[in-house]
């Protein structure tokens, strides 16, 4: 026994040690592979779409209206329609969601009523979009008598995005250290003074990021607007920025893509692909904006 320990030089590799390191390398490669597997589909989808869409992708495609029964021309009415729907739905959902989240995170105690609200928020976030669509149809189109219109569609999208905005805002608020709040309360600041002075300035970047990320979700949804206010075709002027009234129905990118892909025979292939590229482009741009905003605001705050 004493001999064997004397023979082995200190700190040299053992057989078991080599096996451990081999497993470690295998694990690392597997994890790397999975991480790459996330990126490859995204990159290949985007590359494939752009490749197929190339013949139709140009400035004219963006600002022109669909022609020849949507087989040619551009997507202007759908692009503007999407901006309308997303803009109005966020204008409704963001203030309600953020203020509700502030209440839930900063004021609400732990009692049955607030637990009920929490439960409602969580469940609402899990409701499928087609169910939201039916709800919007019943509530806004029929019960509220808004008819099939931009307003009905936007409100439906707002209801859909609301719970997620509440959840992301609460997360942003919760990331503000409790000690900041205690510091304020201990000099006799009210909750509202504390929120104004400390909580909001330190969570605004997270709140805005959460709200902006809902833009991409709202822009991509088809079912809720199809049931409540989006149409196949709407005649508008080329390049017209305000072609719709709130009570009009409108076109939208997601809906337009669905129409081209399933309803219009003999459509030029590149037109549908180009529509998808524009939709994807809008979503990616907005997401990139959210990331940039977060980085910019994070660099300004330090604790």
């Amino acid at each position, binding site marked *: 026994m004493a001999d064997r320990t004397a023979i082995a030089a200190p700190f040299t590799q053992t057989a078991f040690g080599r096996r451990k390191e081999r497993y470690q390398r295998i694990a690392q490669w597997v994890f790397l592979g999975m991480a790459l597997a996330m990126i490859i589909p995204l990159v290949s989808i985007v590359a494939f779409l752009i490749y197929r869409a190339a013949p139709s992708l140009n400035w004219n495609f963006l600002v022109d209206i669909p022609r020849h029964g949507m087989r040619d021309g551009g997507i202007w009415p759908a692009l503007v329609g999407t901006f309308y729907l997303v803009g109005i739905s966020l204008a409704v959902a963001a203030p309600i969601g953020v203020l509700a989240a502030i209440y839930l995170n900063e004021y609400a105690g732990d009692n049955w009523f607030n637990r009920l609200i929490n439960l409602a928020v969580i469940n609402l976030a899990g409701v499928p979009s087609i169910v939201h669509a039916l709800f919007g149809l019943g509530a806004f189109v029929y019960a509220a008598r808004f008819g099939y219109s931009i307003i009905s569609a936007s409100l439906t999208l707002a209801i859909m995005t609301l719970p997620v905005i509440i959840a992301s805002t609460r997360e942003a608020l919760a990331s503000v250290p409790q000690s900041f709040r205690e510091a304020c*309360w201990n000099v*006799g600041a009210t909750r509202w003074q504390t929120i104004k*002075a400390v909580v909001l300035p330190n969570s605004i970047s997270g709140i805005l990021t959460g709200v902006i990320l809902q833009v991409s979700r709202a822009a991509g949804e088809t079912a809720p607007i199809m049931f409540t206010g989006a149409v196949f075709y709407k005649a508008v002027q080329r390049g017209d920025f305000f072609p719709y009234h709130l009570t009009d129905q409108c076109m939208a990118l997601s809906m337009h893509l669905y129409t081209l892909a399933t309803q219009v025979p003999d459509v030029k292939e590149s037109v549908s692909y180009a529509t998808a590229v524009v939709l994807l482009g809008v979503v990616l741009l907005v997401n990139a904006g959210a990331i940039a905003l977060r980085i910019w605001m994070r660099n300004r705050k330090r604790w």
Partner: protein
Amino acid sequence: MSDTTPNGIHTRGLNLWYGKFLALKNVDVDIKHGLITSLIGPSGCGKTTLLRCFNRINERFSYVRTEGKIEILGKNIYDPDVSLLELRKSVGMVFQRPNPLPISVYENIVFGLRVHTPGLRLKKSLLDEAVEQALTEVRLWKDLKNRLKTRATSLQLEQQQKLCIARLLPLKPRIILMDEPCSSLDVEGTRAIEELMFNLRGNYTIVIVTHNMAQARRASDECIFMLLGEVKEHTRTEELFLNPQNPKTAEYIEGRYG
């Protein structure tokens, strides 16, 4: 009702429950004005809980229930007409970890004034004066007078803790509560805070919770020993350390438990 100075803190029959757990049992103490009083005892003895009763910060949690009286400036702070905001203005608190707000040094100090004054009445000269006075009082003015615009969270820990004390002063508090104010500081920082406490003594009633018996011994005038939610002994600090009356106190300061 009490025969001591009216300016201290006087508790009578104070009981406090966390849910069903009785954390303070029938606490009667008279903390004298202008002195440094330390609360010592093993973990979980209720010293921090007692400290937190004095500005009613415990009540943030709905499962806390309090019974009995605490008189400060001759007023029972549990009376229904007491405004928590006004109470906390007179009874300031310093925490274990320095918690300056993530704004400038200047804004940290005037924060209390801003919170308690309608916006338009605050003159710049008045705020400037308050900042200089508070920083001078905590011996930071020389170091920081040219750095008033720096973020308070970027200061050294010791400076942060002094700033947290300075932040209370413009509100002219009567009582300063300190919850282990030196536990995140090094030896130098601890010494500086202790010196500062001595400088503030007289003008303010200072109550300090500490785990560090040596600190209680060198930095306080009176000492309260607590065990399992009860006050076991309250006397002058030398007296408590040299000649403890309660056998439990004696065992604790000898380090037999705790």
